[in-house]
């Protein structure tokens, strides 16, 4: 991205040309990928023209002024639909921009369009979109992961230089891993949730997705920061881009939780991740085995809490004020029929599960219990970070699976096995590619750090990325 910024700055390329290039790519390729739900040709070109004029006048909004971006369709944008890939919000136009959208517009980034997702971000394959299934650019018969599958596939296919995703249990990291791109789930409270259509408010975070760690770091620096409209936003959340790599990982302590390398993990994924760990060791990092004893419960805990919160967050889609309304004889029938028609099966499943775990007679056994386990998991993570700087795990148990392969929802939920812990504990987690399996499908490695230590993730991530690239070009992989 720095190269692009320099070209724009030098006048070697204009923003209009850049946007046109990506629009052409979308035009020619997206019929196969199906990453975009909405492409805003005119809006993007207009914004690009404005960026070019600012460049000419010597008043760019940021070094990245004029570099376009794609936005996941559960993030509110004025002038474009925000559908959450649900029939419920077909043709819904938000009257306000999400805070992150205000920020990227403020930095001069033209928005190419809105990317596909599992309906209301519930899913791990983008197959649960009410509109289209997104295909993995590395193998069109496979899923791109989810729920931010649209943004991940768009970045991987070169339909946009970078994109915004959202991550409640792994929805940025798992598709990034499947598509071979970099993605960050920021510290909870570091990126404003104003304008993010809520799935589980206590875990949702918007995050950057891109082709390199540096790109993700740059985009993170644009969207991070305190926002008074989000009560869970932390003061002093801003992030300055511009740290130079130190050339070594000396002094970095890596923790390897053995719980994440056990049953259910593909041997190929395990091998690549362990190899990456050795590389980091070679760069000077100290590697320590650690234990996160309650991590085995993270998926159950996560599912209990996410469904509980989702059942409440999605209750507002009742046909009264906006979105789909199925007319009926009385208000209660209208609620029922609207919700029956408007939501897909996975959304209904989660609403019912969430309703169940919150019901007075089950509240203590499920919801309360999950809250207690969440506290234990958070304590595990906190004590781990007393010993190490970065916890290293695979991002996903396997590489991208085939479209239609996972029919059992429980199998689908296991896709988040390694990622949900960061959402439960509120810590930042970065995924980057660390090789491919024998089918040529990308494998991701996950780095997790303590609250507000995205800087450590970017440092370690950049070093590992460089080392992998060098090895790749010398043909050692």
């Amino acid at each position, binding site marked *: 991205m720095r190269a692009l910024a320099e070209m724009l700055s030098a006048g070697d390329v204009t923003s209009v040309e850049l946007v046109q290039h990506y629009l052409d790519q979308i035009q020619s390729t997206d019929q196969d990928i199906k990453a975009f739900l909405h492409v805003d040709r005119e809006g993007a070109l207009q914004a690009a023209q404005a960026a070019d004029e600012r460049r000419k006048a010597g008043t760019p909004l940021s070094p990245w002024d004029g570099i376009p971006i794609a936005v996941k369709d559960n*993030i*509110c944008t004025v002038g474009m639909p*925000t559908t*959450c890939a649900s029939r419920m*919000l077909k043709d*819904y136009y*938000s*009257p*306000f921009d*999400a805070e992150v959208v205000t920020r990227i517009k403020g930095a001069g980034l033209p928005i190419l369009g809105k990317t596909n997702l599992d309906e209301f971000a519930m899913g791990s394959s983008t197959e649960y979109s009410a509109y289209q299934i997104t295909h993995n650019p590395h193998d069109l018969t496979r899923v791109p992961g989810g729920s931010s599958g649209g943004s991940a596939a768009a970045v991987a296919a070169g339909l946009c230089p970078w994109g915004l995703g959202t991550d409640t249990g792994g929805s940025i990291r798992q598709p990034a891993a499947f598509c071979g791109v970099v993605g960050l789930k920021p510290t909870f409270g570091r990126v404003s*949730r*104003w*304008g*993010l*259509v*809520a799935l*589980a*408010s*206590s875990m949702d975070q918007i995050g950057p997705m891109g082709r390199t760690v540096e790109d993700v770091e740059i985009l993170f620096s644009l969207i991070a920061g305190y926002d*008074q*409209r*989000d*009560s*869970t936003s932390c003061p002093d959340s801003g992030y300055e881009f511009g740290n130079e790599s130190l050339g070594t990982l000396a002094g970095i302590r890596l923790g390897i939780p053995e719980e994440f390398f056990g049953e259910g993990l593909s041997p190929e994924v395990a091998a690549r991740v362990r190899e990456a760990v050795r590389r980091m060791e070679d760069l000077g990092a100290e590697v320590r085995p650690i234990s996160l004893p309650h991590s085995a419960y993270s998926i159950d805990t996560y599912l209990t809490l996410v469904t*509980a*919160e989702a*059942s*409440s967050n999605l*209750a*507002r889609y*009742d046909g*009264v*004020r*906006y979105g789909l309304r199925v007319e009926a004889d*009385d*208000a*209660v029938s209208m*609620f029922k029929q609207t919700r029956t028609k408007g939501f897909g099966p996975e959304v209904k499943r989660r609403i019912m599960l969430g*309703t169940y775990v*919150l*019901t*007075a007679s089950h*509240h203590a056994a499920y*919801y309360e219990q999950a809250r207690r386990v969440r506290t234990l998991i958070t304590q595990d993570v906190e004590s781990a970070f007393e010993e190490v700087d970065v916890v290293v795990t695979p991002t996903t148990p396997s590489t991208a699976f085939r479209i239609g392969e996972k029919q059992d929802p429980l199998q689908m939920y296991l896709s988040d096995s390694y990622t949900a812990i960061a959402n439960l504990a509120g810590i930042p987690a970065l995924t980057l590619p660390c090789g491919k399996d024998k089918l040529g499908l990308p494998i991701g490695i996950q780095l997790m750090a303590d609250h507000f230590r995205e800087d450590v993730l970017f440092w370690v991530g950049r070093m590992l990325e460089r080392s992998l690239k060098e090895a790749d070009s010398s043909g050692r992989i």
Partner: protein
Amino acid sequence: MGEYKIRIGLEIHVELATKTKIFCGCAAAFGAPPNSLCCPTCLGLPGSLPVLNRAAVEFGVRAALALNCTVNLYSEFARKNYFYPDLPKAFQITQHDKPLAVNGKVQYYLEDQPVETVITRLHLEEEAGKSIHSGDSIVGSEYTSVDYNRAGIPLIEIVTAPDITSPAQAKAFLEQLRLILQYAQVSDCKMENGSLRCDANISLHGESGQNGEKVEIKNLNSFRALERALAYEAKRQAKILEQGGVILPETRTWDERAQKTVRMRLKAGAPDYRYFPEPDLPPLELDEAWVEEIRAALPELPLAREERYRSALGLTAYDAGVLVRAPHLAQVFEETVALGHEPQLVANWVTGEYARFARQGSTVSGKVLGELLELIAEGAISASQGKTVLEEMFTNGVSPREFVAAKGLTVIADREVLQSMVEEVLQNHQELVKRYLEGEERLLGFFVGQVMQATKGQAEPRLVNKLLVKALTEGRNWQPREE
């Protein structure tokens, strides 16, 4: 029927008089055009988030302290989930397990006896919008219109212990509660506008153990409705118990037209609200020093004021009560007394003539009322002239001193002028004079009145009195002049 003990507990909702709503910056106002005071947050649009209004917390804390509650420095917001068209998010942000305040009490008088009611808890929450059904209720209405202006106005919910023992006490309690909250300036507490609302729980307990279940009554839109509905319900339940029947736990509604309670739903079918902590709002943690600041700034509350009026200012219990229950009168009373006027005299004026004129809607400040009392004390005008001047003050906003000067109002204190009037009055009422002289001394008042009337109230009453007594006694042998 007398053998049943009545237990009543009340649940009161009060709209806080903050300028803006509890979770967004929209104006919290009554009577604006429908849906003109709304934004993404109070409409619950996708992607919107709540931000707690500090003023709402301050008002809540002030109310809690005024009701002698313990304020919890740590409290939490929770979601109460249910579907209804006027509830934009299909959940209400309220407080559940960890309310803002607990363990308060309200002391008040019931038939001049001091009584006390325990406040179990007080918590903050948001208002829903207002549904206007084309029919009687949402079921069977052709359509329902919803006004979201009210959605998000801050509310406090106050729950009492079930220690109220009669419908009259429930009414007395609610009146005192309203007064306290008005004094604490947290709400205008207008039942007619819905800024004060009350639901009641009532159960009957027999000495021989035939205990009734708790029945909730809703739609109590006035103090009278509260008392009548409870009285009706107590009778209804007693009758059932006497006949060996069973009271079912249920929710009933007060039908104002029919003057009776009607079943809404049985508690067994009550909705499960699936409460859980509101993830969009961090726990509410209060600074103890801030709470103490609010406590220190609390104005004098009704009970303390009533005690002060009675003991320190020596007012009659009646006048003290009238003034305390009418804060606008109490304010004028205070202002006037502060100028150095005698409290009981001021109270007489304020609760009498002043209150009568003030009922028309206009008002006169304590300073101006003080000026009037000064004129009377100086003897420049009589008390009865004072009433006329006061009326002018209310209707035309005149300054008493200027008005008296301009109208040339004065007291006739000229002995000779009055003497002749006295004589004329006595002459015209010879029969009565005779009766007076025979011992019917209360007739003196009548003669005074006649003289006052003859002078259009301008006579100095004490002098008239003196002259009359003198004329009557000196003239024990007084005889009408012969022509």
